[in-house]
């Protein structure tokens, strides 16, 4: 082998690659899962179950409802507008899980059948414990996957196909931290800190609002034609890992 090639081989042996992760147990854990719900992160640690209450916006809001507080900042993602306000209005805390306006309780197969898009699942979270479908609003329908029990929800994953002018409106108080980031090259936001508020129209078209008091944080991001939302007691890196497991 000519000298340059030998020098390259020697250089290669001196290169510092990041340490190889232990993949075998994780691959085996994934193979052990049923194919539709293979846990992407297999052996990684299970999420802490610590959510007090979960809720999600279901509708499309096309105008800013009310002018209770000065708007400080706007953040836009396709189909979602995040508005930072001076203070959040006081509204009741929604505790009844089945009244969280997630829509009808369905199976994953039914949700796939009825939604106007290819339903994706975050494999890292395993099999959802409940699936909800909200038809008509947004027009594509909206699918929500709930992990954990109604008493102890540990994560909520929501997906819908965003349209240009129908948006979910999300309000956050000044203390909420909003980080702009990328998920597999697509834009997203990670919201952490104080409670967030959703405003939306419910299935009858009526304007509703809900405060969501979470021990957890929220990742909102785009993937293909979908806008996705993950809410759980996780940090930013964990949220990104789960986001990468969506398929």
């Amino acid at each position, binding site marked *: 082998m000519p000298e340059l090639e030998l020098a390259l081989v020697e*250089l290669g042996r001196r290169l*510092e*690659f990041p340490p*190889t*992760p232990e993949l*075998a147990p994780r691959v085996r854990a994934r*193979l052990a899962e049923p194919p539709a719900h293979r846990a992407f992160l297999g052996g990684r640690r299970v999420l802490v179950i610590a959510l007090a209450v979960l809720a999600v916006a279901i509708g499309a809001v096309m105008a800013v409802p009310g002018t209770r507080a000065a708007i400080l900042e706007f953040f836009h993602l396709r189909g979602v507008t995040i508005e930072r306000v001076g203070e959040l209005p006081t509204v009741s805390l929604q505790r009844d899980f089945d009244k969280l306006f997630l829509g009808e309780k369905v199976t994953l197969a039914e949700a796939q059948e009825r939604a106007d898009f290819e339903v994706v699942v975050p494999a890292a979270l395993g099999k959802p414990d409940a699936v909800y479908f909200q038809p008509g609003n947004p027009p594509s329908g909206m699918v929500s996957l709930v992990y954990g029990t109604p008493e102890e929800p540990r994560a909520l994953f929501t997906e819908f196909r965003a349209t240009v002018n129908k948006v979910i409106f999300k309000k956050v108080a000044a203390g909420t931290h909003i980080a702009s980031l990328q998920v597999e*090259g697509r834009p997203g936001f990670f919201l952490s800190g104080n409670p967030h508020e959703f405003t939306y129209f419910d299935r009858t078209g009526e304007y509703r609002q809900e405060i969501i008091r979470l021990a957890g944080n929220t990742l909102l991001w785009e993937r293909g034609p979908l806008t996705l939302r993950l809410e759980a007691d996780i940090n930013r890196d964990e949220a990104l*890992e789960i986001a990468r497991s969506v398929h």
Partner: protein
Amino acid sequence: MEGRPLPEAELVERAKRGDQGAYGLLVQAYQGIAFRTAYLVVGDSAEAEDAAQEGFVKAYYALRRFRRGAPFRPWVLQIVANEARNRRRSAGRRTGLVLRTAAEAPSGEAAPSPEAALISGEEQKALLDAVKKLKEDDRLVISCRYFLELSEAETAEVLGWRRGTVKSRLSRALERLRAEIGERSYA
């Protein structure tokens, strides 16, 4: 496992019949080279980890297409590299070579003994810098052949090129590298 084709062929056959334990041993044997291959393609360790893991899972489900008696390593590396390329594409970015030599490591980390080196730490750094300046295809073919020490056939599988293409691009890349380092000590 490498260089001992019989046990490997046996493990593959068992894995094909659904023995996940046997497949786990294959993963263990090749996770290092698979991870480093993915890392060279995506240039990010978290992405490389995901690509390697996903590649191994996909390979398991594709085992029935695996030709009996063929070497497992290039086959699985091709699936992992493909996964890594897709991730890089969806991230819409071109990656540079994000490696450094042990010689560049901060003091306190283990450094190779200078006597053992064919070229000095300084020369290594200069050579690595020159490789980093190459165009992506040139850099990838050099990385596969010399840094990962893959065979020409394996390099072809990993990069998704024909073998003739690997040969011609490699010789062109070496030429460019010689020009970059100014012919110094390398004939």
